């Protein structure tokens, strides 16, 4: 039985999840990573993607649109820009966000457009993986 660690998922408006977990899969900006207890202290930014927390009582899945995560040996805090539970309700909201993002990408140009396009693609992949 692996050790447990504290996990918090907060968005600017509220706390979405908090509790003891075995591991957290984080969609980091430079690739996915899984944090477990006693992980080296790390701070990473997030790309839009699916975040999975593995607790003894079952896994929970969330879709985050960005933000950052602070991992320390004692626990992991994810500060998401926006986060929704990966279910049909969350999906409906996320699809609206995706459309907004696409629209914004179409308006902008240069590196900003590349960044937004990439984020939109990441998000649409995350949405597809929900169902």
């Amino acid at each position, binding site marked *: 039985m692996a050790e447990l660690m504290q996990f*918090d998922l*907060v*968005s*600017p*408006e*509220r*706390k979405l999840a908090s509790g003891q977990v075995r591991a957290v899969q984080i969609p*980091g*900006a*430079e690739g996915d990573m899984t944090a477990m207890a006693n992980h*080296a*202290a*790390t*701070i*990473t*930014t997030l790309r839009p993607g699916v975040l999975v927390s593995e607790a003894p009582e079952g896994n929970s899945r969330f879709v985050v649109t960005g*933000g*950052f995560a*602070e991992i*320390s040996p004692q626990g992991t*805090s994810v*500060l998401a*820009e926006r986060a929704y539970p990966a279910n049909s309700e969350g999906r409906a909201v996320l699809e609206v966000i995706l459309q907004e993002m696409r629209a914004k990408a179409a308006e902008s140009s240069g590196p900003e457009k590349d960044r937004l396009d990439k984020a939109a693609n990441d998000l649409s992949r995350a949405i597809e993986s929900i169902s």
Partner: protein
Amino acid sequence: MPSLKDLKNRIGSVKSTRKITKAMQMVAAAKLRRAQEAAEAARPYADKMADVVNGLAASVAGSEGAPKLLAGTGSDQTHLLIVMTAERGLCGGFNSSIVKVARYRAEKLMGEGKTVKILTVGKKGREQLRRDLGAHLVGHIDLSEVKRVGYENAAEISKKVFEMFEAGEFDVATIFYNRFESVISQIPTPRQIIPAVVPEDAATDALYDYEPSEEAILEDLLPRSVTTQIFTALLENGASEQGARMSAMDNATRNAGDMIDRLTIEYNRSRQAAITKELIEIISGAEAL
């Protein structure tokens, strides 16, 4: 001496005023609870954000490539004051106290020969500042249509601030808002958001791995941290406004009650006097016969 009819009307009108203020007080109480909950729900994010940014900033500060949002533009000539007030009145000294602090700061800065620009959030502050500092107003953000302040509203404000900052329109930005202490006490607070203020003892012992680099993360985090600070201020302001309104309306209700008591006594006295006068007239009339 007002006639009996006048007094009666007067009492009626004060009574309806009392009903209105009582209703407003109760509405404010309900809204206050919601606003307080919102402010509390936002706290974990803001605290964590501040921790991480302070830790990062302490390690990057002083280095050559420090972002402008942290290091500043190298001058403090032009100040942007972001004055956050309510969209509505009838909340005691809530709006005036923020404006007073902001005005004092503006005058002090101008006395030192600095340039002052003011961005107002909320209609009431704009109205009050327009009179004497109208020339310094550079923008206004209207939240009157917003029922419940969300992160998007903060993002809208910060977007405008960043646009101005990138265009080099100011060097230092400070927000003015009312910090919520309790229902009867709100403290007008100035808080500098650009460049970021890093407490002396912020440097953390924990050594973090950064992915991507420290600078890249900071670049991403600083704007977010500014938005979060604005968001926190908006929420605190929201709770303070309802608190201030609640105590102002409580006072008004009590004053209306006192006034009704006074008027009722006056009314009864005049009624009594009128009756006595009539009796005297009848008796002296009967005696004359």
